[in-house]
């Protein structure tokens, strides 16, 4: 790879230190045993079908002062920031496009992954995630309202602990709503990792890693699914699966994911409603202050008038 002259570079052959630790060379079985205990409880205390959407979920808008709309979502350790900017004219375009375009970029922080340091230049995974995000958002944005314009959506993953595409889609949906971009529906997404007959809803990084590893036992189901849903319209806007699963497994996973996506909806709605209520109150406060000022000015005017008349 050519050297990046625009940044400071470390030595070329540096290796993460956890490469030399005892934990690094664990077999598939050991790793699998670690994920879940005899009672079916996962490492972070959740059951298999429990997502991080309830108590481990945090989201807010208005994260970034410079952006039109922004959102921050935290699923326990997974942390994602998203900002949306005003539509701008598409440059270097020959043809008129009747539908507005979405430009999505997903980027990992260099320090976001527990295993290795991420390069600054966009890699294949980031590009694939960007495409996936765009495809998930396209059906929900009313693109006919801004022809020949493009909407920039940037997602930054500060820490990756599984389900980062799902978190990115949720954050982008919230940021779009915060930026007052016309949308058909709120968009929510959820991930699921399959290892054998276990389905890990909303997986962590360790679970995801094992699910895409090739199992030692041949023929068992394994893989990863991320699904984005428009809950009110009951439409699937994006579905990505990797690994190998039979049909029954996929059908079951689709049902589970659909339910989970619907569960996230109230969380997002609550934030948006709260925003509206707050802005109304702010508006009221401003109007009240304006009235007071006006009253004070009027009073002064009257005073002068009387003075003038008297004089």
């Amino acid at each position: 790879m050519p050297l990046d002259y625009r940044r400071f570079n470390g030595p070329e052959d540096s290796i993460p230190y956890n490469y030399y630790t005892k934990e690094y060379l664990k077999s598939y079985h050991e790793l699998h045993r670690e994920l879940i205990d005899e009672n079916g409880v996962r490492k972070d205390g959740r059951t298999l079908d429990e997502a991080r959407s309830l108590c481990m979920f945090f989201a807010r808008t208005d994260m970034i002062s410079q952006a039109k709309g922004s959102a921050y979502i935290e699923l326990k350790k997974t942390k994602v920031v998203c900002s949306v900017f005003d539509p701008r004219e598409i440059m270097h375009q020959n043809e008129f496009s009747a539908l507005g375009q979405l430009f999505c970029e997903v980027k990992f922080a260099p320090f976001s992954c527990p295993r290795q340091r991420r390069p600054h230049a966009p890699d294949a995974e980031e590009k694939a995630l960007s495409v996936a995000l765009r495809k998930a958002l396209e059906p929900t944005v009313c693109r006919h309202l801004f022809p020949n314009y493009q909407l920039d959506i940037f997602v930054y993953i500060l820490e990756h602990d599984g389900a980062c595409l799902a978190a990115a889609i949720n954050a982008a949906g919230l940021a779009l709503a915060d930026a007052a971009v016309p949308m058909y529906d709120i968009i929510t997404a959820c991930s699921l990792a399959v290892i054998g007959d276990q389905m890990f809803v909303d997986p962590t990084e360790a679970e995801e890693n094992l699910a895409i590893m090739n199992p030692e036992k041949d023929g068992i189901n394994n893989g990863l699914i991320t699904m984005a849903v428009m809950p009110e319209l009951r439409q699937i806007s994006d579905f990505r699966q990797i690994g190998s699963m039979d049909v029954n497994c996929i059908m079951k996973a689709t049902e589970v994911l659909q339910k989970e996506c619907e569960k996230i909806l109230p969380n997002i709605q609550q934030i948006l409603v709260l925003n509206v209520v707050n802005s109304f109150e702010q508006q009221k406060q401003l109007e009240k202050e304006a009235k007071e000022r006006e009253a004070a000015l009027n009073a002064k005017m009257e005073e002068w008038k009387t003075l003038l008349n008297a004089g």
Partner: protein
Amino acid sequence: MAGLLLSPTEKIYILHGVQDDYRSDGRTNIDYRPMELETDVVSHASGSARLRLANTDILVGVKTEIDVPKPDNPGLGKIDFFVDCSANATPEFEGRGGEQLANNISNMLQRAYNSSQAFDLKQLCILEGKQCWKLYVDILILECGGNLCDAVSLAVKAALFNTRIPFVKAALMDGGSVDFQLSDDPYDCKLLEAGTAPLLVTLCKIGDKCVVDPSAEEESCSVISLIVGITGNPKYYSKDAIETPNFKCKCSTIGMNGPGSVAPETFKNAINQGIIAANSLDEALGRALLRERQECNNFKKNSYGFLK
């Protein structure tokens, strides 16, 4: 598909046809258009295939190289896909226009071949942790007539089936260096096991039904398509067919393409439909490839394709 304009009535005509499982060109919803397949067309490649489906023309070459396996998977080989959209294929590919499409297709293939149940990378191992084969699958799109994903996956599978890897004996010498022994006979090769290699099926949603291999007219009626990668059944690809009764095709990847969305019920039906379509396609491909191999073994081919 620029320049193709359909009136609303024509679109409704197509839509109604699809609802009744009888399309405007007489096919059912899971029928493909006739295709031509030729293998072993590039003499310098280890394996190659050329496929023509309607107007889509694809050439695939497989190159082999010796490489060092990844430290995380010391016992596995590597496979890499590269798609090149020739600028002549369609006017839209001029300049950098085809790049995104090419990336999409190679990503899709990479994901579909990721699982060991789809393509076993262990067969590419020479010496665990030290040396392995790396397959470079170069896909050249000569002409684009729609339905690229399906055609590319078929051609890739045919090329992999056709790929020969020389027998290599490797021994570990003192000091960690590896010594290779290559047989003198250039025909001393093994064939790759590509029976389970996945086929991608694109299902184009029209109304609430899906069709495979859409024509340009049908494509313009649809806003979303589903791409399903289904692993193949090895029994179609070997002469001494060992019946494995419990063999079940698996999905190795699913993705969506296009700006639209799909209802969950339609989605489920589409996957089932994709599996049926992939199965029959797989069987036909297997039969064709076996016949070609047979002919090749029996007598020297004297018919030539367009590139040879």
